């Protein structure tokens, strides 16, 4: 599994010859990523007969291009109409949508595209170079450590609650409560399902996501003529390429931010079963913690958009590492890829690097080429895509509701899920009107079940000893970092206040 520069260069050049697979896959991925309910994983399943008809290398290139571009595609509706295409983009609207409302949709899309591409490219290269070491992460981050990582993400609720502590915490705990609906992971005992079989697997994520964000947004925007503010409308009338260039420049100026937030995504991606939703919330929380202007987060702050987008694209290459190196898929899409490879008689694992280096290194070079081609093909579209924000709410609201209801139906094909999305829409609308933050509810819904799963697993392994959460060295280091990241903003604020007082008295 030693990295060989010759093999990499040869493989990279070879991957470019698959441009005819990559380009259509990019646009397909953008579309399926942008439609809630669709994802790379279920698209690959739908297209399985086509994928199985390809030779393994072509099939793998197709799946990788689709995977990477769908990740980027999920951010587009999150920014333009407050609908995250997948759970991995759930943190994107926090700052992306306010930018769109301010008439900066083009700039926001450009920032999302550039940070996705740079984050994706960088982590792909790092993944390739550091594969032997990164693959070891899965051996050290077990349930105990994942509990702390989950709490990193969940602590974002406290951040959101900072503006109105009581309401923020109520919203967060309400989300966590919803997250625990369903059968428990040990004894499969149903809890809070009210007898609905459809809730035995827990509250389905996509209906909750689109209901809380999109349906409630549709209810809210119909009260006005446009989603844009007055100033936003003026800005949108200017047109031109200014927003794209500005977005490109602003992202490149914050290159270091892209680097470290995408690395968070890469490391979390390597852990089997973690994923883009966790990575984007953790990256957002960390970005805000160490920001000089934390008060701007949630108002359309550039760094608040860069962090989740760079992180969720970092996850993409991360999930491939355990699949290829130790034969354990890092996520749902990687698991489907394993099925396709197995069908072709390819067994993933260390031997793959010796037996079929083109298949072992191929996914990474395919990902790098995909990201490079996306920069050229998708970035220019930001200008045109941003025009969606000028559509009158008379048309926008019903389109949003129609799309989201279809999206809610697609993953499980239950009519129940459409009603659920509408129910969450009403909850979201009431929350908006009464000053409760829907993002805080959603964090609970997304991360709550995962936290519970890791916690129960750790408890089960430790035979009920609660102190297991402090039983690992890495876990304890993570606990210390968590504590630090929680108190750091208060220390910084105290320091700033002291400086202000000093200046005032001087």
């Amino acid at each position: 599994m030693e990295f060989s520069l010759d093999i990499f260069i040869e493989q990279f050049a070879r991957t470019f010859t698959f441009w005819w697979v990559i380009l259509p896959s990019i646009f397909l991925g953008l579309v399926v990523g942008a439609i809630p309910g669709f994802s790379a994983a279920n698209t690959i399943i739908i297209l399985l007969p086509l994928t199985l008809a390809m030779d393994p290398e072509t099939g793998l290139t197709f799946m990788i291009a689709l995977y990477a571009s769908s990740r980027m595609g999920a951010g587009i509706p999150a920014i333009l109409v407050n609908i995250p295409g997948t759970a991995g983009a759930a943190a994107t609207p926090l700052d992306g949508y306010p930018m769109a409302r301010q008439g900066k949709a083009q700039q926001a899309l450009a920032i999302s595209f550039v940070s996705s591409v740079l984050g994706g490219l960088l982590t792909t290269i790092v993944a390739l170079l550091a594969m032997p070491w990164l693959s070891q992460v899965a051996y050290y981050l077990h349930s105990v450590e994942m509990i702390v990582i989950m709490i990193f993400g969940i602590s974002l609720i406290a951040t959101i609650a900072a503006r109105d502590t009581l309401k923020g915490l109520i919203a967060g705990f309400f989300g966590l409560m919803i997250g625990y609906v369903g059968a428990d992971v040990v004894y499969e005992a149903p809890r809070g399902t009210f007898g609905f079989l459809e809730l035995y697997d827990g509250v389905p994520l996509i209906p909750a996501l689109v209901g809380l964000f999109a349906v409630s947004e549709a209810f809210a925007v119909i009260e006005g003529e446009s989603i844009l503010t007055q100033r936003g409308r003026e800005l949108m009338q200017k047109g031109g390429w200014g927003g794209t260039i500005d977005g490109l420049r602003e992202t490149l100026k914050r290159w270091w931010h892209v680097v470290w937030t995408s690395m968070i995504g890469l490391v979390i991606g390597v852990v089997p079963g973690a994923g883009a939703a966790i990575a984007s919330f953790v990256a957002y929380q960390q970005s805000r913690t160490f920001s000089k202007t934390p008060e701007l987060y949630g108002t359309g702050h550039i760094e608040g958009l860069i962090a989740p987008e760079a992180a969720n694209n970092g996850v993409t290459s991360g999930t491939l590492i355990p699949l290829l190196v130790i034969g354990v898929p890092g996520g749902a899409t990687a698991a489907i890829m394993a099925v396709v490879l197995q069908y072709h008689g390819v067994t993933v694992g260390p031997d793959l690097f010796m037996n079929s280096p083109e298949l072992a290194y191929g996914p990474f070079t395919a990902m790098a080429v995909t990201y490079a081609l996306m920069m050229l093909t998708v970035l220019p579209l930001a200008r045109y895509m941003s025009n969606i924000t000028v559509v009158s709410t008379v048309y926008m609201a019903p389109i949003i509701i129609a799309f989201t209801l279809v999206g809610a139906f697609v993953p499980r094909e239950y009519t129940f899920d459409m009603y659920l999305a509408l129910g969450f829409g009403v909850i979201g609308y009431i929350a908006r009107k009464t000053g409760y933050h829907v993002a805080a509810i959603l964090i609970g819904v997304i991360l709550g079940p995962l936290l519970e799963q890791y916690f129960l697993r750790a408890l089960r392994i430790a035979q009920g000893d609660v102190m297991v959460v402090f039983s690992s060295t890495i876990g304890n280091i993570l606990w210390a970092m968590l504590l630090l990241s929680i108190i750091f903003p208060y220390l910084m604020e105290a320091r700033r206040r002291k400086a202000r007082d000093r200046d005032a008295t001087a």
Partner: protein
Amino acid sequence: MSKSDSSFSRRGLLKGAGAAAGFGALSTLPFRAAFAAGFPERNINVYVPTREGGGADRNLRAFTGVWKKYLNTNFEPTFYPGAAGRVGYETYMGKAAADCHDLIFGNMGPEVLNWVVKEPTFPLDAYFYFAQVDADPAVMFVSDKSKMQTVDDVVAEGKKRTLSCATSRLAHPASLGTLALGAKTGASFNLVPLSGGRNTRAGVTTGEVDFGCLPASSVIAQTNLKVIALFEPKNTMPDLMPDAVIVNDHFGMDLPPLVAGARAFGIKKEAADKYPDRYDMLVSSLEKVFPDPEYKEAVIKTKAPWELIGYGDRKACAEYVENITRIGTEYKSLLTGKS
């Protein structure tokens, strides 16, 4: 792999798309003719109480890919993995039509154990299995990095400390076998359900748990895992599981064969009683699949061992269900954590 090897090229893509469009238009014609002749009047819906992409999915696709030729219709699987498959069964019994067009394709072992642990909302004799398609034995396995490389190592270590054992779910034939081995030898095993084969293999591979238990086919495909014990009277795949000992022989036990993967088609009793001719047609057409070389080819292509494939009729299925229910009842307290 050279480019010339590729079965899918730019030109191929265009040709394939054209052919697919033409075939799609033409392919409806014979089906319509068949529909007009009687059963089946439409596609057969198959309720699958597990996730897509797993062993059951792979098995079902290989089987129905050939069965459709004999039944002259297509099969439409829908997956309901919730609550250890319980959602799939409840949905099937609640929503499926009782006209022989709706079947369930489940893994009899773990799913029957569900009913031992917690009774369903429907009467258990309201459906029955009529065709078992494989028999995948329950095994114990370790990571190749583990200090324990044999079942004797595991038992010896289990006598010193409680070992964690990953399983896809508590109520599973493989879990039963592991608990029975612990009870017999005095070793202490703590079952950790990790929801599905993928997570179970990951738990063992990454060292979070000490060892695991699953159906054999899902373990032997992963080269860094080693099968160390088998809950079957005979090792039918010695090449793939060279280090697996027969638990009954090795430890002097008399456990019945614990077939952890016993995938089978089931049907509502009402449907079979109301339409016996349709039911007979399902069975007679299904039986033609097993000797068909095309089926063997399809199974081998999915990398599933052909040795595990075999037909079990309604009677054989009933015997299996009765057997696994008896063992499950015996170990119910261990499976529910109420021991």
